[in-house]
């Protein structure tokens, strides 16, 4: 009976991941992240994704502060922040976030302020969707670990 709980949770995890890959939210680099997790770093994926969240939120905050400033003209700074976001999003396999950051960067290279504001809103939307999905994934994995632990009591 307990085994069925673990199996059901694993099926839920697999279904969620398949959906995220199908939607293009994640790509093969997320698989590499999972493959790098091992006994020496059993929480590697969780740790790296949380670093990504921390870094990304700082960058998004900075981007918004820059763009809402009436005196704003430093598109180079926008570009630098976006390079960071593109880089880290690519590395964790966050394909859709990465792609919308590239589109935003194109607007900044043209010094297109309305385009940049739209770009920022799209990036924020995609980022928050990804974050919610990752939280759901981590919750399922935590439940699966707990269920597996119950199955093999000490």
């Amino acid at each position: 009976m307990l085994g069925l709980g673990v199996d059901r949770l694993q099926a839920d995890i697999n279904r969620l991941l398949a959906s995220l890959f199908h939607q293009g939210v994640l790509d093969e680099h997320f698989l590499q992240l999972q493959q790098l997790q091992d006994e020496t770093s059993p929480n590697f994926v969780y740790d790296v994704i949380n670093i990504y969240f921390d870094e990304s939120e700082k960058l998004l905050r900075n981007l918004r502060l820059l763009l809402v400033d009436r005196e704003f003209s430093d598109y180079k700074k926008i570009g630098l922040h976006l390079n960071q976001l593109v880089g880290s999003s690519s590395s964790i396999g966050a394909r859709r976030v990465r792609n919308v950051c590239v589109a935003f960067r194109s607007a900044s290279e043209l010094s297109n302020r309305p385009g940049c504001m739209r770009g920022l809103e799209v990036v924020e939307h995609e980022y928050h969707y990804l974050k919610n999905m990752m939280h759901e994934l981590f919750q399922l994995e935590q439940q699966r670990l707990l269920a597996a632990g119950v199955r093999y009591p000490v």
Partner: protein
Amino acid sequence: MTREELPNLAESKLTALVVDDNFVNQSIHQKLLARLGIQNDVVCNGKEAVDAHCSGRNYDLILMDMDMPIMNGIQATKRLREMGIESKIAGVTTRANEGEKKEFMEAGLNDFQEKPLTISKLLSILHKLDFYVQT
């Protein structure tokens, strides 16, 4: 490539330095190197990489990001070469148009890979720089 198929280069006692200001990339690059048995350190920008060498540290391989604050990868690579550092330096960056790649290579790189870095790309770097013979 499965974990079992990966070479373990621990016996060769290779050392590497990760130079990148992005903490996500630092974590992933360090883990990729560790997975291949390569001991490694990390610094956050080109100046820290130069300072590390000035303090006497030396590495077989340097993975150098291009865009970093204080001192970028191009400046750091030039500086290290001026200092006589002969370590193999591989540029790893998201920026890969031909002009930027040329400028980075001309600074003194031995190899260049586009991010994101993967096990395959890292093995390609190691193979090209004669640290690893593919069988």
